[in-house]
């Protein structure tokens, strides 16, 4: 296993929200997607994905439904709720601001 980059506290939540923003996804697919899109830089501890998913569900930002998977098995699909979409926007704005600020600092000093 390649050494995983530790995710910043709280960023996992944002990544999950972003991953299910377009269409409902199940847990495995979310993990795969984040990994692929980030070119395997972001490794999600698969075990820790589910507590996070459940936490977001309890917060009402995503909702879960049983559905059939691509290979026709029963899987749990997560999709964004209205509150979740709002939360995602706020978090992305915050992230952009923070990342921008850090970039500026790194370049100027």
């Amino acid at each position, binding site marked *: *296993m390649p050494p995983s980059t530790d995710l910043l506290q709280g960023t996992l939540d944002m990544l999950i929200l972003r991953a299910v923003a377009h269409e409902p996804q*199940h*847990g*495995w697919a979310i*993990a*795969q997607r984040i990994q692929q899109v980030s070119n395997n830089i972001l490794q999600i*501890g*698969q*075990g*820790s994905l*589910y*507590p*996070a998913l*459940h*936490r977001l*569900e*309890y*917060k*009402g930002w995503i909702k879960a439904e049983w559905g059939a*998977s691509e*290979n026709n*098995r*029963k*899987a*749990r699909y997560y999709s964004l709720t209205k*509150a979740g979409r709002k939360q995602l926007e706020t978090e992305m704005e915050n992230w952009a601001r923070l990342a921008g600020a850090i970039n500026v600092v790194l370049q100027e000093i």
Partner: protein
Amino acid sequence: MFSEWLSRLRFAVSRKQRNEVDEELQFHIDRQIEANIAVGMPPEEARRQATIAFGARERAREQCREARPGWTVELFFRDLRFGVRGLFRNLGLAAVAVLTLAVAIGANSTIFSLLSQALLRTLPVRDPQQLVVLDFTGATDGHTHSEGGDRPGHHYEFSYPMYRDLREKNQALSGLLASATTTVGATWQNRSEAVHAEMVSGNYFDVLGVVPAVGRVFDIQDETLPGANPVAVLNFDYWRTHLAEAPVIGRAIAINGVQFTIIGVASPGFRSAVWGRTPDVYVPLTMQKVVEPDWDYLTDHHAYWITVSGRLRAGISPEQASASMNRLFFDLRRQEYASAKDQSANTRKHFVDASRLNFASGARGFSPVRDDLKTPLMVIMGMVVLVIAMAVVNVASLLLVRAANRVREFSIRYAMGATAGQIVRQLLCEGMLLGLAGSALGLAIAPQTLRMLIRWMQGRSGDVSEFTPTLDWRVFAFTAGAMFAGSVIFSLAPAIQFWNPRLADALKQQAANVLGGSLRFRRTCVALQIGFSLFLVLGAGMFVHTIQNLRSTDPGFATDHLLGFQLVPELAGYPGPKVALVEQQVLDAISGLPGVRQVGATNDADLIGNGRGGDVSISGYTPKPDENFDAELPWVSNGYLQTLGVPLLAGRLFSSSDTATSLHVAVVNESFARHFFAKPQDILGHHFARPDRPSTDAVIVGIVRDVKHTSLRDPVQPTCYTLFNQSDRPSGLMIYVRTWQSPDAAANSIRAAVKGIDSKLIVDDLSTMTDQIDQNIMAERTIALLATVFGLVAALLAGIGLYGILAYSTAQRTREIGIRMALGARRGSVVGLILREMLVLAGIAVAATIPIAVMATWAVRSQLYQVSIADPAAYASAICVIAVVAVLAGIFPARRAAGIDPSRALRMD
């Protein structure tokens, strides 16, 4: 935010199912295996890689659960369930701990509630801190009507004229109130009964700040001139219990046959400015002559009968008030002295110069009974403190023994992956449960025991107790809190191991010495428990012995089959001259009843702590200078000595030929005669009289044997009996009836006979002589009762505590005992080994306790009667009790140890 809460709520109601989570996690892993196979891995390797990539599955599942809303609550309930299960697993031990806590909490709350009422609590009036109690030092002359007091040499009773002067001329007090108490006959709707009346000044309620519940209370207009204020205020409890809260304002209540108009009812909870008084009705001081028809005090400068307290003016300290009022008091005393009979310089010094007005804090109110109650209450409180100490040691040792027994359980759980936090949480929960259960049980029993104790102290008298059955909540909360904290702390003690860096080693060893130094701790526990319980058992023995001594004291006459009751015709409105006549009628009527052997009467009841005495002069005898001879001077009926059975030594007793108009005669006891003449018979024929009262002159015609009079404790007093119908004043009587019958049957016929003469006559306090004596020694009996209860509790606690500790330590020594037996020790010697250790320890504890016990008994010697503070019998029996308890507690663990099969014991661990 709102939607988040709503969502949490939804999930709190409908939980995610455990298998749903499992299914979801399983899907993930299966999907990963498929993906791995798809990239060409062999199935076995695909499965392995998928599992590794996923990480600890149990942990993930646990974390999913922890993410759940309401997880903390769920966790709490889980710990609680665990705690309950833990306690139930060792139910006997938990029950003993809970009971011990409850006993400690209950006893402390009950006794301290009484103690704080008598000694600490302030009066239920406005700003009690501003109140001061007045007393004075210096000589008095004339008649003092004293209820008792806190300090010797201090007079708490003032004359009415003195009070009026102090009230009207002082500038230091915003108000000065006065009161006195007595028993009166009250007639309400044709029903007469004896009630307590408090005579109060007009400003009484106003100065105290007591408001009426109904109608109005007295004001200064209700205290004008002697006999001019026939108005009454009722006590709230009396109004509620005796008058059924009837509308009373403006209606009349007859007090000693005189109509008083009821103007109001005092506020609930208020009794008196004097703690311990329980008045039913309040009347103005100016009505004294009606309330106490025998006396006329209102204009008398030399009758001291009212207690006085005042409210300090704002901004004035007690010292300033004392300075300014003492100038006034000095002037008043000088004026009083001018009218005194004795004008010698010595008298002046005592009466005027040495006289001083004193101020004491009045927040708790003056109380004549506080002093009597103080020592008994302190003694009992001391016993309670010991019981509490025992309870603490007991619970602590039980919990620690229990914890030590569970080392194995904890190490297994720890090995199974429970965190230290989880185990500590479980212990905490168990400790809290114990504490809570103990407090709850204590709370359940405390008010009941308080009520029972007060009812028991009232005895059969039916009088209102000075104590109210209200629990002191602060004390309850404090004790329960302390016990709760204690049980939590001692429950947590085993958790200390989990902070031990060598934890693993400690748990691996699992053997005896996990709790370092616990052997010394256990020994200390055993010694303390034996010491404390010896102390309490010893106390119980001594106080019970006191009661036995008091009960078996021979007063000089038989106290069985003797009924007594109070008859005061003046309470029914009889005028002075007719009192003796109706009393004689009652005596005659009772003597004619079937089943009555004899009947007699006295104005000075026997053996109930009363005395009526004074100085006397005997014809033909010149007193030595400074001779101070006081004698008991009861007025009796001509059947009195025969009824009690006082034996005649010389001369004759009174007989029916001694009437109101015949020669005035007297009978004296032996002590009286011996004081005047070397040969007692020589006193016969001499004249007796009170100094300066020629009407009391009587010829001494008989000498009787000494009998106890005031109380069983007090020594015999010189006594001179004269006839009530030959006296110069009317008086209420205590009538004694010697019967053949059972007391109840006789009581009914006596009531009927008195009613037959006049239905207004009140038969008060009708009870047997033995009951009256019991009531008189109530303080001693209460101490003895509680001491016995506490002694039993202590012995029981000690037994249980010792058993627990021994059971544990012998279990720890299983291997050692097994080796001994394998080497040929017999069962008997193993039992002996264990018992011997126990008894050596007990012996050391006893030896250490005895000197302390002697000192403690010395401190409470005033409460003992004919019991030496080093009473060998009491010590021997207490030590025996402790030895028996120790052996009983030791024998079961010892026998179990002796029953060990050596081969199995050696194979253990």
